[in-house]
């Protein structure tokens, strides 16, 4: 560490002049390919990376500290700001952790809606990945097409919860709203559209594209051992040939009733991961279609009945005195989960998103730790980038699909 004084002030930047032949460059934090606020200090020998040092923290907002000073329900909208590409996945992971802590069973209709929202968010995130990854590598048109479909998906989210990016569409104990009229039809149409575009636009543009293949094949090769050791999850892990999907292995919500496959790529490179993302999107539309059929069979209850923790439905609050009192206490004081700790892993679009909550029986969590997949994927960069060339750095960052909201928290 530097010893700053009046004559030589503290410099964030490293020394750029060196005695050997290598050159140190700053990749970011404002580089458009750095997917947000990643500052990557690269030591280059010619164009080859000798040393890579990911410097993070430019988007650090202290979300874990905030969680300790907010009641459980207050904190939920803050989780939107973690992985802002698919915020319902964060809301859900947090809600699931709290529900497990208080031992709550969610009504079936809420489960169907939640699973739908999670899969829509997975599609939103994967479409975003295809778009930006292709844009980083140089295929501008894919970006435009994928964002078109993503926009329709965000319209669906907007019709459901009123927000496009920061959804807060899940509550602890259920979901706040039922599905609006005509939404399921629109969802079905969107699934058809995504399926069609996947095959006829993105795949047609990229799958056999010579440049795309040259840029992605054998770039960012991650062996299964390294993937495990670096704590890689989600597509990064499955892209290295390890079929571990929390939806399948440790099912939550309705995933144990649904019929879907876990695609795996064993080429270990960026191209394999790209194909994995495409295959996962097809699985997601398959899941969504099954869920549309499941929705009709459910009872209309949306929130779990647990007066100690969850407010009664609005009609009851407005008509019944006791429900109003309970609601007042829950809003002003907050719910008090029992003393204990929980770690609830979920499969977010980026990987394993889990919340560790330590409760001391207070309305404020004693400690909340957010296990963000992108944090570990960023850590991996310091090893994965060594020996690659500068243009491949962009491909690899795109391929890891990191989002800085959840890296820095």
């Amino acid at each position: 560490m530097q010893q700053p004084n009046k004559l030589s002030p503290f410099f964030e930047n490293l020394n750029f002049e060196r005695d050997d032949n290598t050159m140190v460059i700053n990749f970011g934090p404002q580089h458009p390919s750095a997917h947000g606020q990643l500052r990557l200090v690269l030591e280059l020998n010619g164009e080859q990376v000798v040393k890579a040092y990911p410097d993070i923290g430019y988007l650090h907002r202290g979300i874990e500290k905030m969680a300790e000073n907010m009641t459980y329900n207050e904190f939920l909208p803050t989780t939107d700001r973690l992985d802002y590409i698919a915020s319902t996945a964060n809301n859900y992971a947090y809600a699931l952790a709290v529900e497990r802590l208080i031992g709550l069973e969610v009504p079936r209709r809420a489960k169907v809606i939640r699973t739908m929202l999670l899969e829509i968010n997975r599609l939103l995130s994967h479409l975003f990945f295809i778009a930006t990854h292709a844009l980083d590598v140089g295929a501008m048109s894919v970006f435009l097409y994928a964002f078109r479909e993503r926009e329709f998906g965000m319209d669906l989210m907007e019709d459901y919860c009123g927000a496009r990016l920061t959804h807060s569409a899940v509550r602890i104990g259920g979901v706040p709203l039922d599905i609006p009229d005509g939404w399921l039809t629109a969802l079905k149409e969107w699934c058809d559209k995504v399926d069609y575009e996947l095959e006829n636009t993105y795949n047609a543009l990229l799958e056999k594209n010579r440049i795309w293949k040259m840029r992605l094949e054998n770039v960012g090769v991650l062996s299964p051992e390294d993937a495990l050791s670096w704590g890689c999850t989600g597509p990064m892990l499955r892209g290295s040939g390890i079929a571990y999907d929390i939806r399948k292995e440790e099912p939550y919500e309705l995933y144990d009733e649904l019929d879907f496959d876990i695609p795996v790529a064993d080429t270990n490179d960026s191209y394999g991961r790209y194909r994995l993302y495409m295959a996962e999107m097809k699985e997601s539309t398959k899941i969504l279609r099954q869920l549309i059929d499941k929705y009709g069979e459910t009872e209309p209850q949306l929130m779990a009945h647990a007066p100690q923790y969850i407010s009664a439905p609005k009609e009851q609050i407005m008509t019944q005195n006791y429900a109003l009192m309970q609601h007042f206490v829950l809003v002003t004081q907050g719910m008090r989960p029992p003393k204990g700790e929980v770690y609830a892993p979920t499969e977010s679009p980026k990987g394993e998103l889990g919340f560790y909550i330590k409760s001391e029986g207070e309305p404020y969590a004693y400690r909340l730790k957010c296990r963000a997949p992108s944090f570990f994927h960023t850590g991996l960069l310091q090893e994965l980038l060594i020996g690659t060339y500068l243009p491949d750095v962009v491909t690899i960052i795109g391929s890891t699909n990191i989002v800085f909201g959840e890296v820095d928290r």
Partner: protein
Amino acid sequence: MRKYVPKDNVQKKAYYTDRFHVVPSVPTQDVSTDEIFAKQLDILSSKVEIKSAYIQIGQMRVEINHQDNYRAIEILKNECGYEMLSEMSAVDYLAKDGTFEIFYQLLNLKERKRVRVVCRIEQGLAIESVVPLYKSANFSEREMFDMFGIVVNNHPFLKRILMPDDWEGHPLLKTYPLQGDEFASWYEVDKIFGKDAREVIGPENRDPARIDRYDTKRFSRVGREVPFGADISGGEPETPIEYSSTLLVDYNASQTQLKNRK
């Protein structure tokens, strides 16, 4: 009398707690109820001293001595198949008994089991790094050092990760206020303009919800708008509110958005 605020834990407290409130606990099960966990605990307890072990919400929680952390996790990795370290961090119990609780969240992919290895460490002591076992601990341990100030022995590159290198204090300690401390409020002023500018600029406002009643440069009261920067310490005149006619759209009339899309 001023309300007493404990200095060793500035975390927000419930403003009211029922006198008869009894804190319930999350139910725990004995490790013997789960075959796989019981077998793994046997392997572990033959080599490392176990302080306590139980299953809570489907995951085993094993408490060990902090000197044994590397040994215990090595056994879990090599003999019990815990191939991934999903997460590790600490919990601050300094105000209660002067210790940190460090937890390692491990995952066994083949048997789909998760175990949490927990150890208590006094303030000022260092913990052994598990980076030789799991590379993911590299970033996690740095984050723990950054957030709690717990030094990790034999870590390849123990440096702050989220906060700037020249930051003072460790933000996730219970003694650290939510809005940041004195150092935090001067950090950017000192760094960008120098200490001499402190008097001119003043401390940084670290409360995002703070509104200065007489600040007419950043805020204006609806219905009482005044020119930019005007002095309103003597009160401000009321201006009638005018509504734009374009706002008067009946959004509840029909679901046009959906229909248009179809």
